[in-house]
């Protein structure tokens, strides 16, 4: 792995590892109880005791960010799973079968793409109600269209490769061609895209929680933390900017690793 020699990639991996630990076992990283208010310690700037400072209720912002990882990252991951499963299967069928089936499927995909992802998520959220699950479903559905398109174009690209035609003239059956040639060669770009999509999904999920469509208030979702700090942006800008920066750093890390998987650099 030549990637391991690149500092940006390694840093990205470390950040992702920390984020995963925070999602699965926040108590390992948190320094305070994320819900405990200390009335005397309101709106404190970052210090050794409160790494990111405290909010208007005197809660430790750092610990809230750590505990928020689970909600934010898990719904983003779930969204990617929804997008990949729906999109990849549809794209695979469309590309491999081709002809009329392909034409009809792709017209539906066109529509999924015509509606901006955020709006699609909003429809789902408005219909299903607020919360992490409906967010994941909405964001995932919004991503499924472009996934289907990428998967299909990969399949079509590979299908037109000479080695696939060669396999056919060797007497290999269609299902075997799909399994032995098309899937292995399509895997890498699709995985890379799924990884990139994770970055986008984290952004979409945090945008929607910022707008107030996530879990109800005390829950420390990242977007909700930024939103809660908005009222103090004139006096205590760190309150919303620090969680916002955490989102940025995680997304950058995910994108960096995703590009490396895609062999972009």
């Amino acid at each position, binding site marked *: 792995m030549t990637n391991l020699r690149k500092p940006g990639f390694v840093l990205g991996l470390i950040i992702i590892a920390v984020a995963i630990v925070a999602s699965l076992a926040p108590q390992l990283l948190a320094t305070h109880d994320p819900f405990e208010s200390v009335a005397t310690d309101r709106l404190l700037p970052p210090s050794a005791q409160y790494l990111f400072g405290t909010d208007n209720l005197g809660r430790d912002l750092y610990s809230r960010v750590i505990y928020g990882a689970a909600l934010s990252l898990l719904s983003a991951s779930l969204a990617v799973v929804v997008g990949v499963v729906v999109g990849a299967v549809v794209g695979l069928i469309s590309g491999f079968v081709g002809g009329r089936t392909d034409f009809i499927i792709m017209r539906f995909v066109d*529509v999924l793409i015509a509606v901006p992802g955020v709006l699609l998520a909003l429809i789902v959220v408005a219909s299903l109600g607020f919360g992490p699950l409906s967010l994941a479903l909405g964001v995932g559905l919004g991503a499924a269209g472009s996934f289907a398109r990428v998967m299909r174009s990969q399949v079509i690209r590979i299908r037109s490769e000479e080695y696939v035609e060669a396999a056919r003239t060797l007497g290999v059956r269609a299902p075997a061609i799909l399994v032995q040639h098309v899937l292995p060669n399509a895997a890498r770009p699709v995985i890379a895209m799924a990884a990139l999509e994770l970055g986008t999904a984290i952004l979409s999920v945090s945008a929607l929680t910022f707008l107030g469509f996530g879990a109800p208030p005390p829950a420390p979702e990242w977007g909700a933390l930024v939103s809660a700090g908005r009222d103090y942006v004139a006096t205590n800008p760190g309150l919303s900017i620090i969680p916002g920066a955490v989102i*940025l750093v995680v997304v950058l890390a995910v994108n960096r690793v995703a590009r490396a998987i895609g062999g972009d650099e």
Partner: protein
Amino acid sequence: MTQVKAWAGYLLPKLGQFLFVVVATYTLVFVLVHFLPGDPLIAALAAKGGASTVIDPAELDALRVQYGLDGTLWQQYFGHLIAAAQGDLGISIATGVPVTEMIGRAFPFSVQIASLALLFGVTSAVLITFLAYAAPWPWLRQLLLQIPPFGIAVPAFLSGLLLISVFAFTLGWLPSAGARSFDAAILPAITLALPVGALFFQVFSSAVLEAQNSPYVFTAVAKGVPPRRIFTKHLLRNALLPSITILGLLIGYLAGGTAVVETVFSRDGIGRMTVNAVLARDINVIQGVVLVVGAIYALVNLLVDVAYGFIDPRTRIGGGVPSRARLGAKK
């Protein structure tokens, strides 16, 4: 005469595609709203009056008729479709105002920041690409090329809040909120331009890179053409051509982005209206907005397609020799 026929042959399928996307968008929204669990009207009323709102069934039926949520699904589907074609998108459950009117009022504010954002985004993307192309040192080129991946990763609410805290609160140069003056549109437009510009940059810069390594640029260099002329005469047009195809995609991005940006800057507009509608579970408004955005997206794509037919000599309509001659080249 043949010209007319050629144009018709080119345009009609594209027009059909446009209509299809609009109708299909409507259908998709309809399906999502009616087949996801839950009664939209009850949800909306609960959001309005609190979870414990009790409505008597007769009143509920009357409300259904008022908001166009009565009758069988087929009746609703076709009824609303025909109404929408005539410009009637129904009545908001939360405010009682016709949706068309609400959208009409909010639309100009959003168009203002969206078009500014598109302008900022695209010009800075072209500018950064040119600077990276002309950069005498590799490190500078690398640095410039790092800006756009960054732009894509920044959450719009973060960049918006940062801009507010620096330019509105610290420096006091520009207003932090409102939609009345042109000044108030600048910060939201920049916020929105960041992801849009970055997205455009990705496509444009890779097209430039591809063109830069192309044999025809080598030919130009071997002709003695200076770098700036190579960029403007040989690279720019060839790279812009594939880039304009993502214009439709950018419109979608802009439409989604206004939701966050208008909330951050407390501006009136389509985005904020949509957010409020979702908070009120006002399904009629959401449906109307999505339909309008889908139609704009399809329209932009239609225009891009037509423009392409004009600009690119390889797809230019009518005129020119239909070249069988191309078969003469070996590869």
